[in-house]
């Protein structure tokens, strides 16, 4: 109470403030006058809120986020131990049946393999291209700001719209890619129908938005970098390549780590491309785990099994998530 009265004293010193916010502020700032009943209670509540603000302020958001993310995940883990199917209203606890099933399911093996291929290749390609792109755009060339505006377009285009665009570009008969191939006399594969080219096609579409994502983060890192070590190294006669490997890259390490983890998580979660461009096919050629969960659940209606697959996906993502946790904690 001592604290409250002392702050009341300081408040009283600035009466001009009161007029601005009107009645509510006057009750908030004024001393709790005995006998004013409701108003005094209100003022007390307000002051209590003020004092607890730092504990209370994050609470509503915290509760909402927990309700929307953690509750479904916990419920999903429960469902993964049942044989729930929407067409059968009753379901039973089935123990580890789903998990035993997925261990022996060749489709799951294929999906895990595809996930690793997609995420692995995607990450490496996007990091290399992204860094290259950032280096190009970090140059103080004329008109570079125009380029810096244009290259981020892909990462703003809705995933679904980019999937539509790439489907058209990869079209065997009317797409640009095969047209360019025909101009230079290369064979024109049926990109999305062949099991050998379908995955690279989806990767290409993902790289299109993934590389600029890496680039924008790396570019920010490059522009914030201290120039002195580079200048010093140059005076000492270091080559561009030496400067890049010995100074630029090490300085960018935290930024690169962030970009990599972000991309890895998003590669694991890519779904629009698979749904629109390949539908997971041909056969299982582009069925990654994320898409397989979706299919199992919404197309085949096996919710229990789908939930078990989702748990497998989360387990697979624990490595990138743990990496992310370390980074986030360090930066916080």
């Amino acid at each position, binding site marked *: 109470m001592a604290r409250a009265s002392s702050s009341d004293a300081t408040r009283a010193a600035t009466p001009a403030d009161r007029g601005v916010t009107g009645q509510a502020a006057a009750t908030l700032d004024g001393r709790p006058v005995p006998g004013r009943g409701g108003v005094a209670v209100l003022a007390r509540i307000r002051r209590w*809120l003020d004092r607890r603000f730092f504990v209370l302020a994050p609470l509503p958001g915290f509760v909402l986020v927990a309700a*929307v993310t953690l509750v479904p995940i916990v419920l999903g883990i429960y469902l993964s131990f049942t044989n729930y199917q929407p067409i059968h209203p009753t379901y039973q606890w089935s123990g580890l049946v789903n998990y035993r099933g997925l261990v022996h399911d060749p489709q799951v093996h294929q999906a895990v393999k595809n996930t690793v291929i997609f995420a692995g290749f995607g990450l490496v390609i996007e990091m290399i291209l992204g860094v290259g792109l950032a280096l190009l755009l970090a140059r103080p060339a004329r008109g570079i700001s125009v380029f810096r505006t244009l290259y981020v377009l892909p990462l703003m285009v809705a995933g679904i719209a980019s999937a539509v665009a790439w489907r058209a570009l990869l079209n065997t008969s009317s797409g640009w890619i095969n047209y360019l191939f025909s101009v230079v006399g290369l064979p024109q594969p049926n990109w999305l129908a062949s099991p050998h080219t379908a995955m690279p096609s989806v990767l290409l579409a993902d790289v299109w938005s993934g590389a600029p994502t890496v680039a924008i983060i790396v570019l920010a890192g490059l522009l914030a970098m201290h120039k002195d070590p580079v200048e010093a190294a140059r005076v000492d006669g270091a080559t561009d390549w030496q400067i890049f490997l010995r100074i630029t890259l090490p300085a960018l390490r935290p930024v690169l780590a962030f970009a990599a983890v972000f991309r890895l998580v998003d590669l694991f979660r890519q779904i629009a491309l698979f749904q629109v461009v390949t539908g997971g096919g041909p056969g299982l050629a582009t069925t990654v785990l994320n898409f397989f969960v979706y299919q199992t659940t919404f197309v085949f209606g096996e919710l229990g099994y789908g939930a078990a697959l989702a748990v497998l996906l989360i387990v697979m993502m624990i490595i990138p998530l743990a990496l992310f946790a370390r980074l986030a904690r360090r930066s916080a």
Partner: protein
Amino acid sequence: MKQQTRTLADRQAKPLTKLLLGVLTWIVVLIFFFPVLWMALTGLKSETDANTSTPHFIFKPTFAQYASVWKGAGGLNGLPPYLEHSVIVTVVSTLLVLLLALPAAYALSIRPVRKWRDVLFFFISTKMLPVVGAIIPLYLIARNLHLLDHVLLLIILYTAINLPIAVWMLRSFLLEVPAEVIEAARVDGAGLVRQLRRVIIPIISPGLAATALICFIFAWNEFFLAVNLTTVNGATVPIYLVGFVQPEGPFLAHLSAAATIACLPVLLAGWAAQDKLVRGLSMGAVK
């Protein structure tokens, strides 16, 4: 020019190297720009022009596709109801996010409570979980609450999804506010609501705007939750697009026109927020 950052590619490069790098930049940026351009162009074609055996730049432009996307034609639905849902969901969820995130970010950055690192980390880690793992339970919960296919459901979900990004982003802006300014506001004896309204919000309004734009972009583009949890009454623009995807060729121009319209608001928002985009993408980690 000295003020500009110098990097590897910069140095006193030979004119030829400089020219080659310039050309390379052009080519690379065009490659990244091209799919968007092509999509917009295809939207201006007739369906026959869009499905020629070789791609054409020269064609007779028509607004027929945009018109049929807008009005709906030949048994096809029009876009406006979907647009309306998208606008409602995006705007309301973005406002809710700011309302919840600003006090949270303020509290977490100015006077962190115990375990605040864990709170912050909790916020951010939820953003990393695979949505597909939560979709089944979300579907069941929504069905029991009679919220399936309802804009309210998407509003709640998008608010929760964008909240972590907003908290982290706003926190990164708030950390840049000099401590003396906030101290002065507090010593002044202003109540917390007033501190926020009179001191903090004016200072970080550019950051607030950027945060709003980022939330807008993410909510507008969200596809997976919308497609699985809504069909008609709460269906957003991406669902309109998905509806035309199954058939191979016939709707290519129509689809491109619709996709172009779908991208337009976000491209504008992204253009307006481009300086702060990186902060949104990295959730405040990179400035």
